[in-house]
């Protein structure tokens, strides 16, 4: 049953959702704009006698998560863009070892140290396997504090279901803003079933080895093929999106997270002007919701990809539409959030109205 609504920052709401999902261990390193999340976990994990460590680095934090996840425990870390870069080594190893764990990225503007304002420049890194090697993992993109909480809560289940890291890709706006949010029922970590593949409590079974190495190319090829069959299954079952007023649309805005909020506003303003504009919002960035987006392709319909970057998701949009519709881009970077008014002006320019 949903609880009464609370007014919370996105960062804190993701923390509360993780605690309720039965997260047994949190490891993190301070970085703006996600510090409230680490602080929230410090207070609530220690209070509940679960594990919280402020690690000495992002690299250590993700590997502490790796260790905790190896025991079958629900474990997570959170950070923002530069910190997520440091975690990529651990994420690649986690994918290679098929470990379930949760990573939250409250994106800020990059490259480099960049700024602390909201951005969406980590799309490539998140969806292309940001570390070395041939892999993917689930990427969930919330548009609101409520959805940030819901997706964080669910991320722990999805990680275990698919045996892979799950990244919640938020941004500084989602992390810092306050909205009303209600939470799902708390789960008791003590009651979670023991994982047959996990290390520890080795009674009446062969030893378990959590590892990502395989030096025999023939054997390694088989392992990777098997993993990619799982990826295919995820692509078939896990594509999620939200669609608004696309049926009659001459122009469809494609956006995720904060950009989708701006797009919704611009779409509503355009509709008031009598312009047929719709919105398509990917919720899973990997797998990208290509099935439905592909159905929307039409030579008479245009698409406008809206991002807080110089254009990253637009590559997936173009690949999906495969030349059947015209695709253009509208974005702001450096930590700027596009305004509904500027986006409306672009919509009117494209539609010549």
């Amino acid at each position, binding site marked *: 049953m949903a609880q009464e609504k609370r007014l919370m920052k996105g960062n804190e709401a993701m923390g509360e959702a993780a605690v309720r999902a039965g997260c047994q*261990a949190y490891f993190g390193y301070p970085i703006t704009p996600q510090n409230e999340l680490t602080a929230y976990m410090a207070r609530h994990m220690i209070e509940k006698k679960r594990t919280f460590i402020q690690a000495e680095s992002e*690299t*250590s934090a993700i590997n502490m998560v790796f260790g905790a996840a190896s025991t079958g425990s629900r474990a997570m870390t959170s950070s923002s863009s530069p910190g997520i870069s440091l975690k990529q080594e651990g994420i690649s190893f986690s994918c290679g070892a098929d470990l379930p764990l949760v990573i939250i990225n409250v994106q800020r503007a990059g490259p480099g140290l960049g700024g602390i304002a909201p951005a969406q420049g980590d799309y490539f890194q998140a969806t292309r396997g940001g570390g070395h090697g041939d892999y993917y993992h689930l990427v969930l993109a919330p548009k609101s504090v409520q959805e940030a909480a819901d997706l964080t809560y669910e991320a722990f289940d999805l990680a275990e279901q698919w045996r892979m890291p799950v990244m919640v890709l938020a941004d500084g706006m989602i992390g810092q803003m306050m909205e009303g949010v209600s939470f799902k029922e708390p789960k008791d970590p003590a009651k979670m079933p023991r994982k047959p593949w996990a290390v520890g409590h080795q009674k009446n079974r062969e030893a378990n*080895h*959590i590892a990502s190495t395989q030096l025999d190319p023939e054997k390694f090829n088989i392992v990777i093929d098997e993993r990619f069959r799982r990826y295919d299954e995820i692509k078939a079952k896990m594509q999620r999106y939200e669609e608004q007023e696309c049926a009659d649309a001459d122009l469809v805005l494609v956006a995720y997270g904060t950009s989708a909020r701006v797009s919704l506003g611009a779409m509503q303003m355009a509709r008031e002007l009598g312009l047929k504009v719709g919105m398509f919002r990917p919720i899973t960035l990997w797998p990208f919701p290509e099935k439905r987006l592909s159905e929307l392709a039409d030579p008479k319909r245009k698409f406008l990809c809206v991002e807080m970057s110089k254009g990253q998701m637009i590559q997936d949009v173009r690949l999906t539409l495969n030349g059947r519709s015209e695709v253009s881009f509208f974005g702001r970077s450096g930590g700027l959030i596009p305004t509904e008014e500027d986006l409306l002006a672009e919509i009117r320019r494209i539609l010549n109205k």
Partner: protein
Amino acid sequence: MEAIYAHPKSLKPIQTKYCPGCGHGVIHRLIAEVIDELGVQEKSVLLNPVGCSIWADLYFDFDSVQVPHGRTPAGATGIKRMLPDHLVICYQGDGDLAAIGTGEAVHAANRGEKFTTIFVNNAIYGMTGGQMAPTTLVGQKATTAPFGRDPVDAGMGYPVKVLEMLATLEGTKYLARGAVNNVVNVRKTKQYIKKAFEAQLRGEGFTMVEILSQCPTNWGMDPVESNAWLESSMMPVFKLGVLKDELSVSANKEAGK
């Protein structure tokens, strides 16, 4: 009849891939013997590091976890916090511990993480083929120090004395350095390992046993020469013995009985 030899239960009865004269095999056996003596095979988890001992999971007959190079103490932290009643062994080489993973090692030690690090110091990189290690001796040759480690003109630094460095941290409770170049040292090293494991199972702070070990292949020696070189060249720099013992009285009493 009295049994005078048995293969440890915790070690698989197979031949290792380690080079002739390599110290890893002996060290593996010591760990396995202690685990058997403590009866904790089903409650042990080993972290096998990047380096030659990445193969450790082939030989130890209990659970293992392999993390990225140098992140072994971070991984061990996560495991031990989740499984506080288990024996968690962080097996590290000199590159893993004292080069790429120095930060992880120092901070795990400082937090007083309750696992045991077995630090195998052979003053060279083995698996990658004889590069300079943080513990390579001054003047010792390596593929990346072809004229010998030169701390001054070439700016290659000095051998890192890990235990001495960690001894200043309040989180460390037991730090000892052994070697596996002769029977006496092997036996002493086993005692150190046992004391560290017992302390861990009691829930005391960070424990580490550094073990000076041979790498004949990359030292360019035969196994017998390498035993002698370890004694003549390594031991004067890395002094054997217990460097720090702040274990509780009960731990010391038990070890002494």
